[in-house]
């Protein structure tokens, strides 16, 4: 949201990712036959920005991330990287895109081929980018130093099962960073890790950003983690953006009722804390059957008539964007 002069590195315009679900039976019964995992998402990311993608399980965070690295193709709207529509990429252009954009996977225990040594794992992207073999060793050592795997030579010829979760996640990060990409999506990179090693991996993420100036999206449901690595946060609910703004502002003063609940729900590691009930209705959102109007209205403590009939559009409040009728100018 800064440097608005520069063209954005990432630009999403009403991007959609819909998955067909159910079979003929569901169609006959007239039930909705798509899950709108991402449903009209619009935002821009500038070079060097680090943005947190926050929301409950199933709200479409991973889907958005997969769409951004083109593991899934957007089914509607536009996804641009450096001015190019990435849905249209193929052949060499796609290959070039792949070396500029990377994804860090959520579960490090599954993200590495068990038959590959760490050296094989890290050499794969280098081979794909046609980096001469002579440079491999050096690049691999540099990438491992970047993720603070101290004595790298000790790990090179090991297999994934011989490493701890924290070490594995660093290898996954090293693989993502070895081609020096311009943009990286990290999908809950610490959620599968033990707490005592989480801090280490988060610190690596921060240092890498400081050193390389890489543009990043960090996916999580925990604002405390997002706050540690991102200056801006985008909050999603049922495939849509509900709030977008500087992380510190969102922590201090969340505007959207859903963000308010999310902030209140984060547990803090010391005894003096509020035990107020959460300002959110029970039950989980049903992505196959979202309510009309504002999709949050069935759980929103402040919903009113207008919420049922009209989906709230974006309202700009200083450096924030909120999608809620409470904040919309009267029409």
């Amino acid at each position: 949201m800064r440097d608005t002069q520069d063209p954005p590195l990432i630009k999403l315009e009403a991007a959609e990712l819909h998955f067909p679900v159910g079979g003929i039976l569901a169609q006959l019964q007239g039930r909705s036959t798509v899950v709108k995992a991402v449903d009209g998402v619009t935002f821009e990311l500038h070079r060097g920005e680090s943005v947190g993608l926050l929301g409950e399980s199933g709200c479409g965070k991973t889907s958005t991330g997969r769409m951004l690295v083109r593991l899934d193709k957007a089914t509607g709207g536009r996804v641009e990287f450096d001015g190019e529509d990435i849905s249209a990429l193929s052949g060499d252009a796609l290959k070039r895109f792949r070396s500029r954009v990377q994804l860090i996977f959520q579960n490090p225990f599954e993200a590495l081929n068990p038959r590959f040594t760490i050296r094989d794992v890290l050499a794969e992207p280098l081979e794909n980018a046609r980096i001469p073999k002579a440079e491999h060793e050096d690049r691999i050592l540099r990438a491992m130093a970047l993720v603070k795997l101290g004595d790298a030579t000790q790990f090179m010829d090991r297999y994934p099962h011989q490493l701890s979760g924290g070490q594995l996640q660093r290898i996954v990060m090293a693989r993502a960073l070895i081609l020096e990409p311009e943009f990286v999506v990290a999908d809950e990179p610490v959620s599968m890790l033990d707490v005592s090693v989480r801090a280490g991996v988060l610190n690596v993420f921060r240092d890498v950003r400081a050193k390389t100036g890489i543009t990043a999206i960090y996916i999580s449901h925990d604002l405390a983690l997002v706050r540690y690595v991102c200056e801006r946060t985008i909050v999603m609910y049922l495939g849509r953006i509900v709030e977008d703004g500087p992380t510190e502002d969102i922590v201090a003063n969340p505007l959207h009722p859903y963000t308010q609940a999310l902030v209140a729900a984060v547990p803090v590691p010391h005894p003096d804390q509020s035990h107020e009930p959460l300002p959110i209705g029970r039950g989980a959102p049903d992505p196959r059957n979202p309510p009309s109007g504002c999709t949050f209205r069935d759980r929103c403590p402040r919903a009113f008539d207008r919420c049922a009939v009209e989906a709230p559009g974006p309202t700009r409040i200083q450096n924030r964007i909120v999608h809620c009728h409470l904040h919309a100018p009267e029409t």
Partner: protein
Amino acid sequence: MMGSIRLPLHDPLAVIGLGIYLFFIFMAVFAPYIATHDPNEILFTSEFALAADLTPGTEGYILGTTTLGRDIFSQIVWGARSALLIGLTAAFMVALIGSIVGIVAGYFGGWVDTVLMRLADVAFGIPFLPFVIVLAAFLEPSIWNVVIAMALVLWRDTGRVIRSQTLTLRNRVYVEAARVSGSSDLKIILRHIAPNVLPLSFLYGSIAIGWAILTEASISFLGFGDPDSISWGYMLQDAFASQALSKGSYYWFVPPGFLIILIVSAGFFISRGYEQILFPKLDR
């Protein structure tokens, strides 16, 4: 990556199976030296009478002779050659075709998958033995036609199984990671998928060995076999046609029958070993 191509040496039964194969391979390779006579030569006794229906041991015929005066031991030895030739080539073809079809269908999905799997359905609809007989009769009765007929039909099982294995592999996180790293489809197939399905190919290949040998034996027994090559099945047919059974010439039909059972079981022992590599839980 070589791990998937290892032999199942951890399983005692599989080791016995491999030992049996080694024995037959030895027999096949050195057949000209081991056999005491030309298996097709009509032999005569020292009194210049036809050496017909001699019992084992007489005049140096280790297992005796057939009604037409041929040396049974030498036929057995040469029979190992055709058995192995048929078994191994059929196994190789079945594993190769099945793996390629399965991987391509599973990995690419979509219409490629649909077309290949419809073809597999067609292959499933073909009654196996009649098809082989018809094909062998149509072309000419040669062991190669048996092999081709087998490959044309039996790839279906391998193909199906490898396809479903590929389907689960295709969505593994590390395969997606390879894609994000810019690996091409061919590279992903060769480096991430194939090594994981190879043991399955071997399993189905080793099962096919037994099938092929049995099939050739049945076809030869039914009289559609290759008249120019000696196989154990042919020997059984010859024995049967010559009323060896009623004459009580056990030395004629028991050895080929026993060897067929032995080599087929050895194939299954080995496949069991591969099964344990694939599904370690079967151990218990």
